[in-house]
């Protein structure tokens, strides 16, 4: 049978990839073992009991069977490695997404910075807020404006109470109003003027 396999170039090519995959997984596992955190090492040391002969045989048998499976069905493992890498990349992109309350469906209309400021003058009879646009939030508003570039738009938005919104899909506990920084139809910044 082995002679027949060796004479078949396609089968030879197929089965020669298996050992490479096996070596890859072996090195990866070894690196992961070496790079364990001190905490994991200390827990393992604390819990570690001497392995019996039966345990050792079981472990080596498991490695042997796993190795055989990789040798024969290596395309499955290659696909699995690619899928894992894709998942890591997708999760990384998701984590890097900025966290905004507003999404496109809550945008109402474009508004100029001047009009937004005219609409937002704060006056407190007890003098406990600066009488300027957005009062105590004026610094945050200026930081928001500083990021606006030519071609960008400011949109007024309003999120009704109870709406499921934002990156974490939380329910808005109150009406939320503010301004969104929109670039090429995408929200890239947000200023919350009022919320609960």
């Amino acid at each position, binding site marked *: 049978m082995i002679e027949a396999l060796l004479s078949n170039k396609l089968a030879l090519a197929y089965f020669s990839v298996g050992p490479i995959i096996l070596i890859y997984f072996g090195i990866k596992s070894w690196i992961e073992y070496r790079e364990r955190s001190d905490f994991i090492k200390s827990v393992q040391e604390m819990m570690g009991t001497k392995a019996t002969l039966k345990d050792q045989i079981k472990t080596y048998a498991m490695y042997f069977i796993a190795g055989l499976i990789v040798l024969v069905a290596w395309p499955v493992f290659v696909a699995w490695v690619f899928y894992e890498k894709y998942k890591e990349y997708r999760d990384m992109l998701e984590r890097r997404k900025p966290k905004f309350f507003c999404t496109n469906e809550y945008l109402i209309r474009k508004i100029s910075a001047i009009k937004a400021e005219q609409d937002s003058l704060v006056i407190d009879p007890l003098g406990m*807020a*600066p009488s300027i646009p957005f009062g105590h939030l004026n610094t945050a508003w200026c930081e928001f404006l500083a990021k606006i570039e030519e071609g960008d738009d400011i949109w007024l938005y309003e999120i009704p109470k109870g709406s499921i919104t934002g990156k974490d899909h939380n329910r808005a*506990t109150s009406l939320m109003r503010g301004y969104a920084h929109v670039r090429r139809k995408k929200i890239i910044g947000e200023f919350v003027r009022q*919320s*609960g």
Partner: protein
Amino acid sequence: MTAQSMESLVFNGERLRMCTTPLDIYLVQRGIRFHSETTANWRGYDGSWEIKGSEELGYRLYLVELSASIEYKKYVGLDYLFPDYPNGIFAHWFTGEIRCPRGDRLHYVHGGYASIYEEDLFLEFHEGVLKGSRVVKNEAPKPIAQEDLPWFLRSGGKND
């Protein structure tokens, strides 16, 4: 999550506790996070609020005191956030309801502000100005009958 400590609110001479944290949205806007020293206060600060005003001018929500932790055992006050307003600030950004529980606690829930008290006073604000209030009377939730639980959650005792 542990039940969270409540901030205080003085309204009509009555000292209330609040199950709402009106300062949060300001802190989010400014990108400020305080240091939490206990699981009972993940936000890392404690505020004292007051509703001040008159029939003519309207009643408004003010933050009058703050104790916030910027690192372990290092606390700052209102002047840290609002150096020009150390005696209090108008919370003009706050729109929504503040829930103030009153009376005895009927049911404890080990998380957030989910515990149930005899009654809740809800104060409705629009841009920091009081617009209305309502009181909701509560009852302790009835214990769930064994037969209403899925089989794997039922207790096995014969007397249950």
